[in-house]
């Protein structure tokens, strides 16, 4: 009896505490929303001391932003040095961490600004900022968030991004490889608030021992090639590896034409309508992929990620597959694949470029000037050159770097000429790509 009562009391307490906690959190969110409205219409917020404080803060913020545009770069650097430190949240594999930490040290030496590099993943960075927003934390811990287009879109939607087009003030941003990157990344509108840092690229890799170099298949002839070489082509499960979903969107562009998607609005109805309509060769997207599957490696079995697909290639189980150049570079570095036997090419009409993973500054970054200086440093010719030569398998995001890279390095990492990729420059449409990935499970994997 005694214990039962106790248990009931405990459960009630727990529920009350949970609910209290939730509503406390919710209260905070509401305050944030109200402060945001007050910032927009300054005159309406005369009530309450708290309101007044926010108003003054915003006024300073807005004045700061107006001032920023007028500031010279030297002044910004000066301000950054006064801030003295910058927190950079990055992600990637272990070799990425080591590389970014090295960059951080070199930045410190050059500018005397301390970099606190935090290695995590883009998902937790966004979640952290979201938690700050909900708690109404106006001075956070993240100055530079390294993410890719889809998490950035989430950050924009949630209002986590500093409302200032940083590309306008960064001197090195003027040299971006393609001006459209200032406004779009994977066709996600970025309004100058997201600065690309690396250019990853998917290409077709093939085994020179088995594949005739003079007769490499393009998208038009891929199916015929697979029929002639059954079981020797594969691509990563699009939901588990970027080489898979970049291939998927490239197939879509080839079948239906790039113009149908380039900077076009997205809706599920439109996507369904297009993906089920006959494309270039008379087949719909799903018919084509299912037909291709019949002649692929272990039909119905898709490697779970880029590494798995690469491993199958290294074991000569497959002879041809779409793969990231940087994954190939890593395999070459580790001696897990014979570089003399691997060839790379970009099948016509081309595999989509990117992603262009990059940086944004959160709205509550404590050291915004230092953040801008760091981002500017990361897209400098000097750092981009290091990315291409040391990290391997990456293209620079600014002009004037590629020409300086020695030929033997380009050959070592099996890089294709940048001019060829720039000429095609098919950008991924993140929303169509993601929708296709989701449908792929039902339409291809299940069937």
């Amino acid at each position, binding site marked *: 009896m*005694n214990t039962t*009562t*106790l248990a009931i*009391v*405990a459960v009630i*307490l*727990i*529920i009350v*505490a*949970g*609910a209290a*906690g*939730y509503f406390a*959190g*919710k209260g905070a969110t509401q305050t944030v929303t109200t402060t945001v409205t007050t910032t927009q219409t300054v005159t309406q917020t005369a009530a309450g001391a708290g309101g007044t404080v926010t108003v003054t803060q915003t006024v300073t913020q807005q004045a700061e932003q107006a001032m920023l545009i007028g500031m010279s770069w030297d002044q910004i650097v000066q301000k950054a040095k006064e801030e003295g430190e910058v927190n950079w949240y990055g992600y990637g594999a272990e070799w990425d961490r080591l590389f970014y930490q090295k960059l951080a040290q070199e930045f410190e030496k050059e500018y005397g600004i301390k970099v606190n590099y935090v290695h995590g993943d883009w*998902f937790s960075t966004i979640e952290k900022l*979201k938690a700050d*927003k*909900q708690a109404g934390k106006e001075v956070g811990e993240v100055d530079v968030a390294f993410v890719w287009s*889809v998490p950035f879109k*989430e950050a924009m*939607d*949630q209002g986590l991004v500093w409302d200032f087009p940083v590309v306008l003030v960064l001197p090195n941003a003027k040299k971006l490889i393609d001006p459209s990157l200032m406004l779009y990344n994977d066709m996600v509108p970025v309004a100058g608030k997201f600065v690309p840092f690396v250019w990853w690229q998917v290409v077709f890799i093939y085994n020179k021992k088995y594949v005739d170099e003079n007769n490499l298949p393009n998208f038009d002839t891929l199916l015929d090639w697979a029929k002639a070489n059954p*079981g020797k082509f594969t691509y990563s*499960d699009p*939901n*588990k590896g970027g080489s898979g979903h970049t291939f998927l969107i490239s197939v879509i562009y080839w079948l239906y034409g790039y113009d149908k998607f380039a900077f076009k609005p997205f809706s599920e109805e439109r996507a369904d309508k297009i993906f089920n309509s006959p494309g270039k060769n008379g087949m719909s997207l799903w018919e084509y992929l299912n037909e291709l599957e019949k002649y692929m490696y*272990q039909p*119905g*079995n*898709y*490697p*779970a*990620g880029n590494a*798995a697909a690469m*491993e*199958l290639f290294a*074991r*000569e*189980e497959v002879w041809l597959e779409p793969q990231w150049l940087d994954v190939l570079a890593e395999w070459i570095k580790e001696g897990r694949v014979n570089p003399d036997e691997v060839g790379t090419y970009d099948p016509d009409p081309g595999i989509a470029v990117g992603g262009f993973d990059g940086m944004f500054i959160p709205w509550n970054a404590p050291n915004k000037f230092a953040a801008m200086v760091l981002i500017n440093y990361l897209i400098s010719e000097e750092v981009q050159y290091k990315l291409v030569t040391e990290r391997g398998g990456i293209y620079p995001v600014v002009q004037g770097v590629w020409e300086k890279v020695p030929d033997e390095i380009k050959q070592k990492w099996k890089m294709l000429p940048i001019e060829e990729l720039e000429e095609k420059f098919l950008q991924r449409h993140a929303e169509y790509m*993601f929708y296709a*990935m*989701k449908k792929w*499970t*039902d339409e*291809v*994997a*299940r069937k």
Partner: protein
Amino acid sequence: MPAVALKGRLTIVLFLMPITLFYALVWLYPLILVFLQSFGVPTLSGKPEVEGYPTTEFYREFASSPRYLTALWFSFWNSLVAVLVSILVGYLLALVLFLYDFRGKRFISVLYKLPLFVPYLVAAFMWWVLLVPKGYVYEFLKALGVIGQGAQLVNDPLGIGIIVANTWMHIPFVALVSLGSLKLVDPSLVEAARVLGADMRRVLRHIYIPLTLPGILASLQLIFLSMFGGFSVAYILGASFPTYMSVTIYEDVVQRYLWSIGSVQAVIYLISALVITYTYSKISRKGLRRI
């Protein structure tokens, strides 16, 4: 109710308050957030995913989508198979180690515990490398004629790779628990049976197995839950379809930021785990009474 007793109870409640609040904060609070999110209340997503919440829209989406229903069913039967195999192998191993003395027994008893020290992710990759074509185990089985040309042992729709890795990971748990219960069996019972002329098979059937069954069944339940909700093994070794529900949750939440449908799956995961545990304890208790 006497006043003294009430006062005593109140004291206990007050004493228990800190720990209760701690539990509430650490375990129940996140669960409540997930539960609310599954009805579209933006507790995790930051901003609402639908207009007009709370709504059962996401539960309906779950019930009408073959993707989620198949994932739930697949997680269930695939884990069950892995559990049964682990129990069988683990129990036999424990019996051998318990009943027989042989050279190298110490070595074996260290060896079989090794998986306990291997992280799930590492085990998953290890089995992927072994079971993929040109992997040692794959080629060995092919040479033996167990599998034919083009057989799929990883990323296959039956989840063979998942079963193998999960079994390998959990055999030590079963063996340790079984060994513990075997050691608790009163040796005088066995001696009595032997004196009365029972052979080893009868001793096993009538003494060891019935007396150790509760322990084994308890371990079965625990490892089932850990496999059912496990992620890394299912992610690395699983097919594109069907997958474990942990994988569909990951895809929905981490890749697509669909918090509500992800939370629905989490809630359903939790409920099915509770239902399975409850039914299971009922059945096993009934079964035990009969023995």
